[in-house]
């Protein structure tokens, strides 16, 4: 064999190997989980659950979200980066359903398994699944708790209503329907929309407490409004008994002291785990179950120290389970 022929063969072999290597894509090793925000602990339990669920198919979880609850642009950017990145699938908790619909549609069209938590975007494909908390049931739970606290008689005000989120509207509908059905003696004397701005929520809480009609209980439909209601209660100029039933587990500690009566919590750990398992199914090429509704959990002084709350809501040991 002459040297030039040998060289040519070597060159051809190298080029073919290069082409094969360039043509091969490494199998993705991670699922990305994009919550509404990573600035509050609400979604940390979902992260912990997703880590467990993803481990069942040998994947890890990349967890990052906007620093603010209303940073839609930031979430869109993260979603777009994740879509282009090497991920096995995306778990998304959209800040706003309408704005995320088209990006999710595009990613799903490319065949990427996607799980959407908390909102139904209306996209029906075999690689898109939804995990929803039963918001109407959550509203009913809140109504039943209020009814019990007020013994069927009194005035309540609702705050934190987000007209752009179907989950928020469902909560309110479930609450008022149950209240009028089971506790007709309790009147809704005020309704306020909400935002993620705590100062604004506190101010709204204080305004509601200044209504001509004495408010016996505040029902706060979001984590920010729950905190706002709590701060408004502590800052009352003329302290008087006030019950608070909130939503979403941002602030659980005041339940121990009785300053907050109950919180309707999302089982975020369970949802995170099931969402990651759904992505695993998608990665294996199996059809993903279109919709799963998970019952919320009412956290009160009676059960806050129990195992169920610890298992479902706390984010402890997510690192241990994964690495150590």
């Amino acid at each position, binding site marked *: 064999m002459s040297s030039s022929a040998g060289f040519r063969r070597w060159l051809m072999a190298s080029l073919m190997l290069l082409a094969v290597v360039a043509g091969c894509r490494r199998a993705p090793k991670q699922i990305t989980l994009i919550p509404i925000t990573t600035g509050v602990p609400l979604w940390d339990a979902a992260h912990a659950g997703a880590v467990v669920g993803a481990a069942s198919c040998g994947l890890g979880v990349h967890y990052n*979200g906007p*620093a603010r609850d209303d940073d839609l642009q930031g979430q869109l950017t993260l979603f777009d980066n994740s879509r282009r990145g090497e991920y096995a699938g995306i778990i998304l908790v959209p800040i706003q359903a309408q704005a995320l619909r088209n990006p999710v549609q595009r990613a799903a069209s490319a065949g990427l398994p996607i799980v959407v938590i908390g909102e139904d975007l209306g996209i029906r494909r075999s690689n898109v699944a939804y995990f929803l908390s039963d918001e109407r049931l959550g509203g009913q739970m809140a109504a039943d708790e209020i009814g019990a606290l007020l013994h069927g008689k009194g005035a309540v005000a609702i705050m934190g209503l987000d007209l752009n989120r179907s989950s928020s509207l469902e909560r309110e509908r479930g609450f008022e329907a149950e209240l009028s059905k089971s506790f007709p003696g309790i009147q809704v004397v005020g309704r306020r929309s909400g935002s993620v701005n*705590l100062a604004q929520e506190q101010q709204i809480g204080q305004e509601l407490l200044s209504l001509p009609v004495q408010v016996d209980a505040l029902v706060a439909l979001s984590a920010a409004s729950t905190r706002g209601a709590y701060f408004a209660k502590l800052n009352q100029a003329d302290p008087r008994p006030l019950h608070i039933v909130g939503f979403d587990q941002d602030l659980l500690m005041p339940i121990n002291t009785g300053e907050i009566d109950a919180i309707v919590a999302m089982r975020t750990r369970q949802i995170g785990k099931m969402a990651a398992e759904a992505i695993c199914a998608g990665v294996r090429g199996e059809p993903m179950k279109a919709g799963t509704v998970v019952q919320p959990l009412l956290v009160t002084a009676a059960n806050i120290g129990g195992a169920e709350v610890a298992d479902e809501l706390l984010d402890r040991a997510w690192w241990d389970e994964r690495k150590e």
Partner: protein
Amino acid sequence: MSKSKLKVVLSIVVLAIAAAAWAGYRSLMRPSIAGFSNQADAWTPYGGAWQLSDGIMRNNSDERGAKLLGGSKYWKDYSVESDVALLGSYGDTGLIVRARDPEQGVDSYSGFFAGLRTLDNTLLLGRSDFGWEEYKATPIPGNIEVRRFYHLKVVVVGCSIGVMVNLPGGGVVREGVELTNCNRTGEVGVKSYQTPAMWKNFRVQPATMDDLNALMGGTALGSHRAGTLYGVAQHANDIGPIQQEALNHRLEGVTVPVAELKLLSPTTATQASIRGVVRLLSPMVYVEDATGGIAVESHDAPALAIGDEVQITGSISRSAGLLVMREGHVKILWSNNPASPPMITADEAATGDEDGRLVVLQGTLMRTLETSGQEGVLELEARGEVFRVIVEANNYERELSKLRPGSELQLTGVIRSDPGFAGDSAFALLLSPSQGALRVTHEAPWWTRRHIVYVTILVLVLAVGGVMIYNEIKHRYLLHVLEERELLAHDLHDTVSQSFAGIGFQLRAVEDTLGSGKSPQLQLGRAQTMVRESHEELRRSITTLRSEVASLSNLAAALKACAERLVEGGSLTIECVSEGEPRRLPLRVADCFFRIGQESISNAVLHAEASSLSIRLRYEARHLTLLIVDNGRWLSEKKESTGNGLFGMSKRAEMIGAHLQVSSDGHGTSVRLETELVRLPHLLNGSGVHGFWLYLKDSIRKGERHD
């Protein structure tokens, strides 16, 4: 310059490059930072509004998880220390070690964080990996004071991390962990969470286990094995800090919406209270609520941060439609992540309705106006509106230097319409210091006037250079042709010229003989023989001058064919051997070896009267050797007929830098030709690269000769 000298010089150059590479590697691997100054480019912000002044790095934002990273991701074991001060009453701040894969976000990096937290007044240590895993939270006696510097030091060696804070009273608090799994290398940095903060005297240096032990001062490292990896403050689950935080946010008195302040008397200042979010700190503080924005010229809060929700009571005046608050008494209600500002058009901004508000604007950069030391002024155009952008030069030095007219920018800042800022433009935008406030959305096209001039000059230089190179090549080609002519002249002199001289001599002898009446038969016979031999010689010369390029791919075979052609019909035995792995040779080398070989074979066949001829061609890694040996007459005996042939052979050998040795031992003559081969990739061999190498060698040799 001799070959040995060349080798020495090359060795020195290689060693110098290796030393520089080693020094660069050492510098890359050796952790070393002293302060924030002079390293502006070395720090990468991930969120926040960073400002460096008098050696103090400050984050003016309440953003959750704003971080600034620097150093090298290859740094391994080191200590990081800095004086750290929290400027807000709610949040944490401290130092990051071993950071990898950073992104913008709250805990969006893989590494470790040690710092001070005001919520529960603890020194905390934990792992961040796009999530937060807290290992230790040790109470700090006497609580953490806002705006007070604490000296914080972190040592990380292997998977052991220790942190120590010096307390103002003289005491220290230490904590540390020993992990089984960790990032072994990573960057360093500073971070604050939901509070503005300051850092100074930042220092990084290499560390060992001894340094870690010294830092811990006998305090045991927590470990998973010993069941002491986690240790949170006893009152971490205490409701007290949360209640206190709520009480801190109590609203006092009645606040007035900013829009309503525009209805206050234009002639007298009015005392009023507003509530809003701090949007800008420099050149003046701007506070914005849902109805509008107001400038706060003077206030009593030195540590305001962008994103702070504040209640300010002060004297409000209105002049030329612009609201200004003076002597404001500030109460910070909340430390928030600043909300995203709305995007508006330049038309909307020009109406004046958005004065004092933080907005996002887009425009095309027209030019950078003259700047003072502290301030840069850009002039932009959008939808026919021309507006100015006022930039703090300190914060945007790097970005400003890269901006080119024609680029499309997206800017975040506060609108001002008064001529003091806007000049003769429609309005001015006071650029926010927050990260991402100045973004180039589309670079200006490259064909600017300046670039066209640059490209034209470059093309001209290349053209002139190309012509010079072409002329040089042409010149060298002519030189080569002249050298070939010289060789040809020598060949002709050896053969035809000598023969004609001999024939002339015989003809004169014929003339003399005829004059003496003798028969010129002998002289005529000699002359005829000489004509025949000359004819043969000339034919041979013409044959050898024909191009043999096609046959040079196999040099040994070409030489053997040449010898067989010359001895056709004769009894001379030819042995031709090729040793080593044959390879493609540079054309000049192959041609030279063939010509010299051909001349040697020709001498052996035509003049030496040899009965055997041996041709050996040996390919070695870096050398090529040709050895032609005959058993004919000695060199001295045939010298008269080969003298100028030897000259031509020497000349050809010199042209490629080869070594030619012709010797006789009494039993024949041996011709040995040896040259060094440059190891070049096969694809390059035979091309101009080898010619260039020969040219270099030739130039060095000529230079040496001139010396």
